[in-house]
């Protein structure tokens, strides 16, 4: 921060809202690369999450995406930090360098610090300073000193803006939707909540794309402002400006006095510069206390990547505090509590994984050429498991018991189930038996089952609606037809 001319913003003590305004100015200046960074970072993960858990009903994908926000924000902050010093890093380069800056205290921010209301205000401490844990904690305490930095207010404001913007986008899309299509949509949504959920998710993602870089910029500006207040970052640039102005004023005088000055011993040469003095003071004990730490550490694998996230995670998990740390009279108690806390956390995570294992399983995707229909249509179940294992035997048994209606019902359902399996037969709620037959005659005229259904439907309709059950011989003949025409290619007769 000492190289004043390189700053892209004027370092000066401001009020918190002025600092937030500085953040908005930073966003306005760098919105294009910041948005690019955001899209490169999040678009693929978002699509992957929503592909794994489609729809709004499964809240796991949006919840996971929201929970990982500290991860998505890291490249944005890195870009801001570099851009402030005039270093314009290409977005792709920034992502490639993610292991260098991205994992510092990331685990903390994704676990017990996730719900911190001052996330964007504190992230620079975790990500940019990379100080040891104790100094980080002290730094956070210093940042929390009055006057208030408004980090929580910034988060609260962003959350409301985000929700409002997402809702506005959905309403806007709804209003601009053609009426006729919206009517279709209204009825479609009854059965297709996934599509509505997808629209909500898209709107939410667009809102985040607009607001998340702004949120990071404002948090970073608040952080800069607080440190400017606390550490007088503005003094050196200010003094430098004064010096430059004075140098400009006294240049003619210096030109006159130059011969005399050349004769006098140069004090500057003997005295250390202001900059060196400042560095020396800042590196001193009051500002940067030194301590010796002894701990067991995992040995780095010879060919491993030192920036590997899991190595970092394990190192931090098993990192021990220095022996000199005051633990009172029961030094083992702290260690015990620490182990218990980690064990509890791991147990909770395992329990969550176990309880949500059915959501974690990747759902079977329908084959693109064979869309699957709902298996229960207004009480008429087409699911194979709702039918007897041996349909033919069940039909013969029903006939034996004199229940010809049940026999034909089984045959009709089994035929529809088979057609569903073969062609992904879709039956709308309002479809009648005649509609189903006409639909199949148009779409699958060559399937033997379609021809069979044309013979079965009149018998079934007469039984169901006319209370005139077909004769046993007719049902048995239909059953025989079904066994022949219902076989898939390559199967033998049932």
């Amino acid at each position, binding site marked *: 921060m000492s190289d004043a001319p390189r700053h892209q913003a004027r370092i000066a003590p401001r009020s918190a809202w002025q600092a937030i305004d500085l953040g908005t100015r930073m966003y306005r200046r760098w919105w294009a690369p910041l948005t690019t960074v955001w899209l490169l970072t999040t678009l693929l993960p978002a699509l992957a999450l929503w592909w794994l858990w489609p729809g709004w009903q499964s809240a796991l994908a949006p919840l996971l995406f929201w929970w990982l926000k500290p991860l998505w924000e890291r490249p944005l902050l890195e870009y801001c930090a570099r851009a402030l010093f005039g270093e314009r890093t290409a977005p792709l380069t920034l992502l490639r360098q993610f292991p260098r800056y991205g994992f510092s205290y990331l685990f903390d921010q994704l676990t017990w610090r996730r719900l911190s209301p001052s996330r964007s205000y504190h992230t620079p401490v975790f990500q940019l300073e990379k100080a040891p844990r104790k100094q980080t904690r002290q730094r956070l305490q210093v940042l929390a000193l009055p006057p208030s930095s408004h980090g929580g207010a910034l988060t609260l404001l962003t959350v409301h803006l985000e929700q409002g913007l997402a809702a506005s986008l959905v309403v806007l899309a709804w209003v601009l939707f*053609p*009426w*006729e299509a919206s*009517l*279709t949509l*209204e*009825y479609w949504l009854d059965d297709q909540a996934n599509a509505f959920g997808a629209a909500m998710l898209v709107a939410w993602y667009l809102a985040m794309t607009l607001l998340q870089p702004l949120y990071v910029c404002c948090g970073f500006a608040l952080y800069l402002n607080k440190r400017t207040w606390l550490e007088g970052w503005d003094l050196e640039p200010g003094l430098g400006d004064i010096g430059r102005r004075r140098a400009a004023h006294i240049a003619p005088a210096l030109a006159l006095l130059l011969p005399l000055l050349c004769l006098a011993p140069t004090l500057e040469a003997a005295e250390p510069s202001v900059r060196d003095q400042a560095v020396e003071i800042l590196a001193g004990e009051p500002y940067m206390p030194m301590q010796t730490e002894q701990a067991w550490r995992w040995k780095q694998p010879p060919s491993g990547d030192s920036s590997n996230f899991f190595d970092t995670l394990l190192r931090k998990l098993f990192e021990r505090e220095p022996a000199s740390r005051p633990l009172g009279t029961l030094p083992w108690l702290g260690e015990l509590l620490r182990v218990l806390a980690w064990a509890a956390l791991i147990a909770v995570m395992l329990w969550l994984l176990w309880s949500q294992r059915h959501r974690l399983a990747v759902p079977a995707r329908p084959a693109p050429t064979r869309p699957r229909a709902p298996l229960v*249509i*207004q*009480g*008429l179940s087409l699911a194979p498991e709702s039918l007897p294992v041996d349909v033919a035997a069940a039909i013969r048994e029903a006939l034996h018991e004199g229940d010809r209606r049940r026999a034909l*019902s089984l045959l009709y359902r089994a035929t529809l189930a088979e057609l569903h399996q073969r062609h992904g037969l879709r039956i*709308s*709620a*309002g*479809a*009648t*038996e*005649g*509609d189903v037959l006409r639909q199949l005659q148009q779409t699958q005229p060559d399937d033997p089952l379609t021809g069979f259904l044309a013979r079965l439907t009149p018998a079934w*309709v*007469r039984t*169901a*609606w*006319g*209370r*005139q059950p077909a004769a046993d011989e007719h049902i048995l003949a239909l059953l025989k037809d079904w066994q022949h025409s219902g076989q898939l290619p390559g199967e033998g007769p049932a």
Partner: protein
Amino acid sequence: MTQHSDDRVTPAAAAPMPLADAAALASRLEQALNQVLVGQREVVREILLALLTGGHVLIEGVPGLGKTLLVRALSRCLALDSARIQFTPDLMPTDITGHAIYDPKSERFRMRKGPAFTQLLLADEINRAPAKTQAALLEVMQERQITIEGSAFALAEPFMVLATQNPIDQEGTYPLPEAELDRFLFKVLIDYPDAEQEQRLVRMVLDGTIGDSLAVASLAQITDAAGVLAMQAAVRRLSLDNAVLDYAVRLARQSRDFPGLARGASPRASIAMTRAGRAHALLDGRDFVTPDDIKAVARPVLRHRLCLSADAEIEGLRMEPLLDRLLDAVPAPRQ
């Protein structure tokens, strides 16, 4: 008010006709009408359904598609009286129903019956007359009687009104009031025949197979008024499952809360669907009604009873796609 019986022959209670015979008779009638009205099979079937149900029909279509021909052919095949009224803005109610004239010679009022005293009444361009004149048909259609000077005259059975209206030329027309629309069993849309059927029609006229005027002399009589009443009685004997009846009611009820509709169907629509569904089953040769029958008659029953909302009209939404959605949205009954 005194009740008078019409002097025309009103068949006594028709003898029960076997369902198979009624279905065969209806089928022959349909074939005969299709010979005259080429390329309008659906229209012919819907008119026939209305006849078997004992209902009235509102036909909408551009001129020149054979509406008058259809009425004349129907009259010929059934040996029924027919009359045609051209509705005009200056048409008076008494021009339809008739009126009493004072006869100075006999010093008594003499009844002059209007053209409504018939069995097949073609009310051409019904929306050209003002509401007062249109309302004259209300009593005729609903109660099948005409009141003149306090005396009610029953009409001969069967009685059927076939009213037409032109969908294009709306200048100087009077839309039918809801109460009157509800009294029509069906609204039938008559459209141009497809290319193949039109070619066949032209070829038949050129060959002399059918006349290019309204000549229906080539048609043979299929049955008479008694036969029609017997078919109507046979239709009423068809069995109707409760689930099918419930389906018709649900269709009507759903229309009252359906998006895009300002007004839904009245209970008269549920009754019309079940009655017409029975006739449809008979025409298909069945003695029971299926959900398919209800669905087949739902469009002509509902299309004139429903009213699009203002928003839907502004957006250019049409009634037919909306009816398709309604039929898709209401779950069909399953057994």
